[in-house]
């Protein structure tokens, strides 16, 4: 319990630090986006369901290299539907760079930038708030397309409360839409 609390506090601290400090160095003001994604896990800490993840994010330094974002998540076991097993989460998401000439340009008729993302997230079951688990994920095939981002094929590691790897996950897709 002690380690879980420390992990969550550390993540929250880093999230708020990035949300408050980074805008001071940013060229543009922060932007906001909401996302929907579908993912699954192979870990005893998550059920075998298909999960739908709904999230809202603030990115503090849009279109800059090393662009951090802070997100809140609602992770719903959607198939089979188990609303009672939903999880709430927070994450720090780091867009590593924006590459305009990239090998995935054929995926969209629009002009896109390759914008891979590294994320660290903490989730807690809404029905059992003391039971934390973490994920660290990489979205290598993530494109910025003006209106937002879309990503396919993100891979994540699932960590238990003592930060030991206890499985993995795959995100099939993620669509993010910039609000403003």
């Amino acid at each position, binding site marked *: 319990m002690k380690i879980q609390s420390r992990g969550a506090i550390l993540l929250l601290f880093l999230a708020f630090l990035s949300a408050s400090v980074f805008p001071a160095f940013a060229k543009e003001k922060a932007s906001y986006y909401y996302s929907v994604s579908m993912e699954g*896990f*192979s870990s005893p800490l998550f059920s075998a369901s298909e999960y739908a993840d709904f999230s809202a994010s603030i990115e503090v330094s849009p279109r800059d290299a090393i662009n951090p974002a802070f997100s809140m998540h609602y992770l719903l076991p959607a*198939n*089979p539907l188990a609303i009672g097993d939903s999880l709430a989460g927070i994450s720090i998401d780091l867009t590593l760079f924006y590459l305009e000439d990239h090998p995935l340009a054929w*995926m*969209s*008729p629009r002009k896109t930038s390759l914008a891979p993302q590294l994320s660290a997230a903490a989730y807690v079951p809404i029905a059992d708030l003391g039971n934390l688990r973490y994920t660290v994920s990489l979205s290598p095939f993530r494109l910025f397309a003006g209106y937002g981002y879309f990503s396919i094929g993100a891979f994540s590691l699932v960590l238990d409360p003592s930060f030991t790897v206890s499985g993995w996950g*795959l995100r099939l897709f993620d669509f993010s839409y910039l609000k403003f």
Partner: protein
Amino acid sequence: MKYRMRAVPLALFILLTAGAACAQDLAFSIGTWSFLPDAAGKLPGGTPGVFPSFGATYGITRYLEAGVAIIPRLTPKPFDDIFVEEHVGVSLFGERVKASGGPAVYINTLLDAGFIFGAHNVISGAPVYSRALFLRITPITLGNPYYGRRDRMLSVGLVYDYDANSTSLFVSLIAADFYLAPRQKAR
């Protein structure tokens, strides 16, 4: 009855192969495929999990197309269940390609009928197999071969497993077709 059922995938295969030979609008596809439980609560894949779909579609006529896809289980046990589907589809609200080469209807609806073969316990034990027919409607498709890209959204299908005599639904939230030889790249 048994032989007729065997003839279905064979006939589809011949149709698809013939179509490929003259297709100008070959695309490869990626998407999602979510199996829903039947009335008895049984899933076609046995247990829940994430199934992507990787496939190809190609044009047969201005309205008709055909496709094949492999649908492997990725979680929690990768490749423990593998489905293969083949289908023919018709665009309901307009041509998918224009004979003139100009832009065809951008927003359309697609109706597919096909066969799906499943191999189960591929990794974890003695494999068992399933065979089923399916009917799928995709209410919204955006794009066509002219634009080099098409998105298929909110597809819903009915699967009839004729060995188990069970019927269930499946959903594909989104699938994207990437045409190999786009006639026009929209910017």
